[in-house]
């Protein structure tokens, strides 16, 4: 099937600096896609190119079967929401939402009913007469969403829409935006640097780094099966252990050989990526492989569970971070200096070539 939005070899250069390199991506009708990456990775530039607010140095964009690569913003079909809300401060909520409708010369009554429908849709009925400054940040952003949707665009672009909001409002509003998007079925692209946000709302995540796409996949794929060390590092917390590949689906970490399926030539240097939740403290039964004894170095209390740093002679010098529940620690009477057996889950260990690099700050 033909994707609704198709990017073919999009490239963007600012002088000698390559901001985007050969971006190829198809987005299906009704999909919610997140562009995720650290600041400077090019995700906002790519969104602005789709919007026609920046011009690509090369490549093509098709939307709904129509070539839009060189169309000015006004001739494309999208609604956009910015981090700064960009509501017109001197216009009321109703005038803001109606801003694009008035230009279409619709009858006044029709505009009015559309405005109240939208304001209700974003959960702020009765606020039509207010000015933006009388609303909270979260409420203003809802109005901005309503304004962007008023003309029923085929594509909704969200440029870090939640970054300026408080943590609680942010979590709440992202779910509402997601619900609204499902209800209207509008194809949506959201730019974010918050991996948790992307994991929680997206149908698919496009992980970007230094102007290229590292991985495109569902949140589960990106989290469980990162395509590159960068994705593994950027999405979620992860342990990196230097190791040497061995025969028979084994790797050597420090002095110990662990079971770990891989395709690397024996004897080559590899790094093992392993999430904290994939290091198990229970159940550990006789006959389990990859079990070793560890000593607790540090416990960071995070509420219902703790982030525990352990070391073990079995792993050589390398510390490992694991999640242990508060109840488990209490039950076993474990604290700093305590000892416990741990197990590495072989099927969750990701093996990449080469020496481990320092994590990005």
């Amino acid at each position, binding site marked *: 099937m033909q994707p609704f939005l198709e990017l073919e070899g999009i490239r963007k250069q600012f002088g000698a600096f390559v901001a985007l390199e050969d971006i190829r991506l198809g987005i299906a009708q009704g999909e919610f896609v997140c562009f995720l990456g650290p600041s400077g990775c090019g995700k906002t530039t790519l969104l602005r190119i789709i919007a026609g607010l920046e011009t690509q140095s090369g490549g093509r964009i098709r939307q709904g079967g129509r070539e839009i690569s060189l169309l000015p913003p006004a001739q494309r079909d999208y609604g956009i929401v910015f981090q700064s809300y960009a509501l017109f401060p001197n216009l009321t909520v109703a005038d803001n939402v109606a801003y694009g409708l008035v230009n279409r010369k619709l009858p006044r009554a029709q505009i009015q009913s559309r405005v109240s429908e939208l304001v209700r849709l974003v959960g702020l009925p009765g606020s039509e007469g207010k000015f933006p*400054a009388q609303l909270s940040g979260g409420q203003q952003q809802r109005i901005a969403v309503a304004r962007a949707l008023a003309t029923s665009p085929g594509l909704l672009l969200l440029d870090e829409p939640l970054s300026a909001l408080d943590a609680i409002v942010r979590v709440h509003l992202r779910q509402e935006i997601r619900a609204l998007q499902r209800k209207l079925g509008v194809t949506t692209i959201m730019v974010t640097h918050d991996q948790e946000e992307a994991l929680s709302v997206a149908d698919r995540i496009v992980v970007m780094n230094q102007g290229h796409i590292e991985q495109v996949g569902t949140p589960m794929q990106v989290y469980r099966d990162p395509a590159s060390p960068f994705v593994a590092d950027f999405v979620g917390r992860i342990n990196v252990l230097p190791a040497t590949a061995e025969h028979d689906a084994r790797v050597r970490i420090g002095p110990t050989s662990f079971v770990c399926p891989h395709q690397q030539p024996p004897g080559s240097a590899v790094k093992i990526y392993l999430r904290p939740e994939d290091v198990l403290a229970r159940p550990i039964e006789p006959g389990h492989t990859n079990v070793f004894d560890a000593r607790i170095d540090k416990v960071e209390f995070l509420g219902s569970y703790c982030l525990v740093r352990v070391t073990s002679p079995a792993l050589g010098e390398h510390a490992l971070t694991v999640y242990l529940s508060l109840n488990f620690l209490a039950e076993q009477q474990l604290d700093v200096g305590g000892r416990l057996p741990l197990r590495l889950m072989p099927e969750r260990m990701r093996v990449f070539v080469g020496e481990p690099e320092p994590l990005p700050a």
Partner: protein
Amino acid sequence: MNAAAAPAATRPGATPRLRSTASDHLAAVAVSLVALTLVAFLALPLLSILLQAVQDNQGRFVALANFVAYARTPALLESLWNSLWVSALVTLLAVPSAFVFAYALTRSRMRFKPVFRGITLIPLLAPSLLSAISLIYWFGNQGAAKGLLDGLGFDQIYGAPGIVVAEWFAVFPHALMILVTALTAADGRLYEAADALGTSTRRKFLTITLPGAKYGLISASLVVFTLVITDFGIPKVIGGNFNVLATDVFKLVIGQQDFQRGAVVALLLLAPAALTFSVDHFVSRRQTAMLTARAVPYRPRHAPLRDRLLTAYCVGVAALMLAMLGMAVFASFASFWPYNLAPSLRHYTMGLFDAEVGEGFVNSLTMAAGTALFGTLLVFVGAYLLEKTPVPAALRSIVRLLAILPMAVPGLVLGLGYIFFFNDPANPLNGLYHTMALLTLCTIVHFYTTGHLTAVTALKALDAEFEAVSASLKVPFYKTFWRVTLPICMPALVDIARYFFVNAMTTISAVVFLYSPSTKVASIAILNLDEAGEIGAAAACAVMIAAASSIATFLFWLLALWIGRRTQAWKA
């Protein structure tokens, strides 16, 4: 590139451009008009000064011969030296005295701050030479306090002493405004940290206050120096036989019709102004970077002794200022100074009717209104197009440069450029010469930069994405300009209009070269009356200008209030 015919969008090596829309074309045409105006009424006149300086009076290229001739004229070199030391001395006097005043306004708990501030701003409402006229009444040959001058060992006020004192008063408000801004931008947390470390008051002043105001001090010094060295009115009125560059230009060009040497002196005057401008431009960038959004405003502590000393100082300065201005007002009403001080309107009636100042006054009001209206329109539309529409980069940087340039051009130099450029019969714009329209345009260009910067500041405060949102909603940019940008910026527009109006009322330096008998403005009439020995009428005329400026300021204030009610209701 024809995108419809070449849907492949990319040719290797060529960066594609989005197809232009009708509104893009509209913006490009509008910004080109602004650029053309600035080129015709700023860049070309300045260029013609340069040309005059390297030509002889037959129009032949003579390279630096005019400069050599200038350097061989001892009288002109003396003027250069006079200009330099007088400007330096005024800078040394005005900046520290304004700094203490600014410190009192921003860093003390002194009472009646708005009153003090208001009094020091009064000189801005009158032509700068008002202070020279007052000085003559105080210390001139028939002055009220001539004895004091003799006691100090000066034999007369005319010449350097008069220029220095009159300029000191005239530039004080300019220095004060810059220093108040610099001292207001204080981070209270620095002082709290210093207090927590047990720092002495003196050390806090030397390590926090002074470094914080460093750029303001540099900027104020440069501005004062430039204002003094390029001022024409004060040396003309009270300079006597003491020649300075500014009066030389006038004598050379208007008196002797020696355009070539006049152009050389004009370039000499342009040098310090251009230097000031570039340093100030650099400095102001550093200044803005100093204060972060997280800074906590500084609150002065309770310190009765400090407040009493500073109050005494401010009372002293304010009293001197009022004495200076009051004398001109008083003398303008005196029947026959110094013999009959009974109040009369003699000078006003004489000035207004006999010397045709009435007509000049109407001309002044017309020019001020025209400057305020068309200047504000040009400045705001220009700034808007630069900041908010997709203007081609090359055009954008040209217009930006031309908008900032007037700051670096003294009025005298601009006026001279206008003579050279518009008086040329070969120039198709020659018909404008001597007209009110040219006087108005010259004044707009002369004061363009401040208006431009005000407009840019107001526009930058708007969300940068308004235009992007409008485009996504398929609303053309001019509709958003009309419905959103303009209403929000109305207070800034009123401010720009007021600035244009008051400066047009009081300006002398640029228009002194451009008027004809039928387009003489009131501020020029002061000079002519003074030259004719009618100093009473000159004072009356200056007072009338000050009164008109004050009334206009008040009306603009009312307008701002009314507009605020109508367009700023959204401010929570």
